[in-house]
C-alpha cells in the first residue's frame, strides 16, 4: 500500500469487537487487583478466561477480515475522545488491519498458552492471583499498543507494557536481585520512552496531529530532515523496548522474573514492540533512507552482541536472553531494509514468538525439576528424565538454528536474502553479518541443548541439601509447550507456502523484491553449512568433552562475553558515575552554597543581636543615660534642621 492511500474504513459489524479484545484482559486485571484476597481462589482461572476470551474475539475478527478483499482490510474504530481541548484533540481509537490483527493473535495466543502454563508454574506461589492480574494488565497494555490508531494512544500502551514488565520482573521483590533488575529495566526503558515522546511531539508539530491518518498521508510532503529526526527518535524508542544496542543491558537482568514472564514479555511479545513500531511507521522510514541505515546498523550490531553473549552464559535463561536480543536484532535489521524486509521481519517475529516462548517454557520446566537451579553446568542427561520437555525444547532448538523445514529456517532465510537483496556494500556487510549470526546461533543453542539434556549428570544439592529429582512438569505446563512446539515446527512452512504471509501483509507494509537478484538456494545452502559448522563446533566443545561443573576461567573473549561485553561496566563508567558526580556536586553546592547563604544570614543576625542584647544590663541609670543621650541627639537634630 503506498502510504498516501492510507484510508481506513469505519469499523462495523464484527469489527466493532476490536475494542472488546482490549477490554477483556483490562477488566480481568481490574477485578483481580481491586478484588484483593477475595479472588485468590479463582483468580488464575479468571486470568486465563480473560486471555482466552480475548484470543477468541481476535480469531473472530481475523476470520471476518479474511472474508474481505486484501485492500479493504483496514478499519478504524473510534472509542471515545480522550482529551477534548479546543485546538487539540486526542482520540482513543483502534486501528484494525493485517499487521495489527497478526500481533493480536500472537499476543493473545501465546499469552493464553503462557497463562495456562503459569497456573502450574506458579501453583506454589501464594501471590499467584497478583501474578495473573499483572499478566492480564500486560496483555491489555500490549493490545492497546498494537491496536492504537494514533501515536499518543500507542505511547500509552507502550508505557503500560513497561509498567507491567517492571511489576513482573520484580514479582519476587523480596529478592534484592529481582528488585534491582526491575528498576534497571524500567530506567533503561525510560531512555527509549523519551525517544518515543519526542517523536510524538515532533509529529504533532510537523503533521498537525499524531493519528496514523495524519502522519501517513502527510509524510511525503514533510521536510526530509524532520522525517529523519522522527525516524531516529522512533528507533531510540525501539532500542529501549526491544533491548537493542545501545540500550540492551536490561534484558539479561530481566531474567530475574518468573520464567513465564520471560517467555511472554521478554521473548515473544513486549520486546518485539520495537519491531512493530518500525514496521508500523514504514511510511516514515520509507521516506528516510538515513534513518533506515541507522536501523540496520543497530540491528546488525545487536545481532552480533546478543549472539556472543549467548555463547558464554551458564545461566540457561540468560543464554536464551542473549539469543532473544540477537534474534530481535535480525528483525530490526530486516525492518531497516525497508519494503524488502518488513514482511521478513514480522514473519521472523512470529516464528520467533513460537519457538522462543517454547524454549523459555522448556527452560522453566527444567528449572521446575531441578530445584530452580538455573546453572546449566549443574544439569546434564535430562533427556531421559524429562522426555516431553526434551522433545519440545529440541523442536524449538531446531527451529531457532534454522534447520529446514522448521519455522526458523524459512523466516531467517528470508531476512538473510533480504539483506543480500539490498545490494551494494551495505547489502554485503549486512548479509554476511546475518550469516555469521546464524552460525553463532547454532553454536550457542547447541551448547544449551548439550549442556542441559546430554552428557553426564552434574546435579548438585540445593541450599537445603535436597537432591534434585527431575520429573516431567504437570499437564498444565506440558500442554502449552506442546502447542508451541507445533508452532515451531509448522508455522514457518505455512507462512512460506504459496507466499501466503507475504500476500497477507503486503497491503499494509508494501513489498519489493530488492535491487539485486539473490539466488535463494545458494544463500539457504550457505546458511545451512554455517549452521552445521556452528553446531559441530559446539559438539566438539560440549558434546565430545566432559563439561566441567565449575566454569573454567576461559579466554579473554569468554570473560568479556560473560560480563555482557562490558555493557554494564560501560554504562556505569560513562553514564552512571559522571551522573553521580554531577549530583554530588549539586548536593555540595546546595549544602554549602544555597544553605550556606541562608544559614549564614540567620547566624549573622543571631550573633549580632546576641551582642546588642548585652546593652540590657539591668542598671536603671544606664537606661536613663541612653534616654538622655537619645533626647539630646533628637534636640540637636531638630535644631540643626530648623537651623
Amino acid at each position, binding site marked *: 500500500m503506498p502510504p498516501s492511500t492510507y484510508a481506513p474504513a469505519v469499523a462495523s459489524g464484527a469489527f466493532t469487537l476490536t475494542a472488546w479484545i482490549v477490554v477483556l484482559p483490562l477488566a480481568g486485571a481490574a477485578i483481580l487487583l481491586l478484588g484483593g484476597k477475595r479472588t485468590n481462589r479463582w483468580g488464575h482461572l479468571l486470568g486465563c478466561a480473560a486471555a482466552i476470551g480475548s484470543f477468541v474475539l481476535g480469531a473472530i475478527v481475523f476470520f471476518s477480515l479474511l472474508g474481505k478483499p486484501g485492500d479493504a482490510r483496514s478499519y478504524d474504530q473510534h472509542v471515545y475522545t480522550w482529551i477534548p481541548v479546543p485546538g487539540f484533540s486526542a482520540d482513543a481509537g483502534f486501528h484494525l488491519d493485517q499487521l495489527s490483527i497478526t500481533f493480536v493473535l500472537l499476543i493473545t495466543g501465546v499469552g493464553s498458552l503462557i497463562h495456562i502454563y503459569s497456573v502450574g508454574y506458579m501453583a506454589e506461589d501464594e501471590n499467584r492471583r497478583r501474578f495473573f492480574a499483572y499478566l492480564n494488565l500486560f496483555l491489555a497494555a500490549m493490545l492497546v499498543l498494537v491496536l492504537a490508531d494514533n501515536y499518543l494512544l500507542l505511547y500509552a500502551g507502550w508505557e503500560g507494557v513497561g509498567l507491567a514488565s517492571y511489576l513482573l520482573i520484580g514479582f519476587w521483590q523480596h529478592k534484592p536481585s529481582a528488585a534491582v533488575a526491575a528498576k534497571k529495566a524500567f530506567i533503561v526503558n525510560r531512555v527509549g520512552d523519551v525517544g518515543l515522546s519526542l517523536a510524538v511531539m515532533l509529529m504533532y508539530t510537523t503533521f498537525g496531529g499524531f493519528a496514523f491518518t495524519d502522519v501517513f498521508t502527510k509524510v511525503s510532503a514533510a521536510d526530509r530532515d524532520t522525517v529523519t529526526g522522527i525516524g531516529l527518535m522512533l528507533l531510540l524508542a525501539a532500542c529501549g523496548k526491544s533491548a537493542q544496542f545501545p540500550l540492551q543491558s536490561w534484558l539479561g537482568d530481566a531474567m530475574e522474573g518468573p520464567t513465564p514472564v520471560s517467555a511472554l514479555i521478554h521473548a515473544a511479545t513486549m520486546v518485539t514492540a520495537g519491531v512493530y513500531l518500525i514496521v508500523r511507521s514504514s511510511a516514515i522510514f520509507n521516506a528516510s533512507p538515513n534513518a533506515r541505515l541507522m536501523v540496520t546498523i543497530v540491528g546488525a550490531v545487536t545481532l552480533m552482541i546478543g549472539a556472543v553473549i549467548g555463547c558464554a552464559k551458564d545461566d540457561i535463561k540468560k543464554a536464551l536472553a542473549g539469543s532473544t536480543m540477537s534474534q530481535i536484532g535480525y528483525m530490526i535489521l530486516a525492518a531497516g531494509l525497508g519494503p524488502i524486509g518488513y514482511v521478513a521481519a514480522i514473519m521472523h517475529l512470529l516464528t520467533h514468538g513460537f519457538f522462543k516462548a517454547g524454549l523459555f517454557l522448556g527452560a522453566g520446566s527444567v528449572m521446575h525439576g531441578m530445584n530452580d537451579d538455573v546453572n546449566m553446568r549443574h544439569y546434564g542427561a535430562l533427556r531421559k528424565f524429562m522426555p516431553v520437555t526434551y522433545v519440545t525444547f529440541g523442536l524449538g532448538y531446531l527451529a531457532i538454528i534454522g534447520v529446514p523445514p522448521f519455522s526458523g529456517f524459512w523466516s531467517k532465510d528470508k531476512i538473510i536474502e533480504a539483506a543480500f537483496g539490498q545490494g551494494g556494500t551495505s547489502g554485503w556487510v549486512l548479509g554476511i553479518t546475518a550469516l555469521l549470526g546464524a552460525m553463532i546461533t547454532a553454536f550457542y543453542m547447541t551448547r544449551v541443548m548439550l549442556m542441559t539434556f546430554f552428557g553426564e549428570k552434574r546435579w548438585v544439592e540445593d541450599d537445603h541439601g535436597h537432591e534434585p529429582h527431575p520429573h516431567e512438569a504437570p499437564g498444565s505446563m506440558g500442554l502449552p509447550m506442546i502447542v508451541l512446539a507445533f508452532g515451531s515446527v509448522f508455522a514457518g512452512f505455512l507462512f512460506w507456502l504459496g507466499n501466503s504471509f507475504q500476500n497477507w501483509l503486503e497491503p499494509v507494509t508494501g513489498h519489493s523484491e530488492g535491487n539485486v537478484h539473490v539466488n535463494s538456494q545458494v544463500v539457504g545452502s550457505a546458511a545451512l553449512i554455517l549452521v552445521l559448522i556452528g553446531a559441530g563446533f559446539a559438539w566438539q566443545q560440549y558434546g565430545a568433552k566432559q563439561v566441567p561443573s565449575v566454569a573454567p576461567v576461559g579466554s579473554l573473549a569468554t570473560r568479556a562475553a560473560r560480563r555482557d561485553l562490558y555493557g554494564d561496566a560501560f554504562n556505569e563508567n560513562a553514564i552512571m558515575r559522571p551522573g553521580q558526580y554531577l549530583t554530588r556536586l549539586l548536593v555540595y553546592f546546595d549544602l554549602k552554597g544555597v544553605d550556606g547563604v541562608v544559614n549564614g544570614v540567620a547566624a549573622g543576625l543571631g550573633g549580632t543581636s546576641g551582642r546588642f542584647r548585652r546593652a540590657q*544590663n539591668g542598671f536603671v*541609670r544606664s537606661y*536613663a543615660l541612653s534616654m*538622655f543621650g537619645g533626647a539630646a541627639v533628637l534636640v540637636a537634630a531638630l535644631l540643626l534642621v530648623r537651623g
Partner: protein
Amino acid sequence: MNPDNYLYLSAILFTLGALGVLIRRNAIVVFMCVELMLNATNLAFVTFSRMHGALDGQVIAFFTMVVAAAEVVVGLAIIITVFRTRRSASVDDANLLKY
C-alpha cells in the same frame, strides 16, 4: 526683671536634676532629682506663658503637677516595697531584670 533669667534658672535646675538621676544611687535622691527636673520644666512653662502673654503654659504646668503627684505616689510605693524586700534603696542593686 528680664524673663530670660528664669529660663536660665530653669535650665540649671534641669541639668542638676539630670545629673542627680545619672550619678546618685539612692533611689529617694534619684526620685527627688526627677521631681527637680519636673519643676524646672514647670518653671520654663510658666516663664514662656508670661513672655507670650498666653495661658497655655500655666495650664500645662498644672497638668504636670497633677501627673507628678500621681507619679510620686506610685514611685514611693515601689521604692518602699523594694527596700522592704532587699534592705537597700540603691538603684544599682535592683538589676535582676536584664538580658
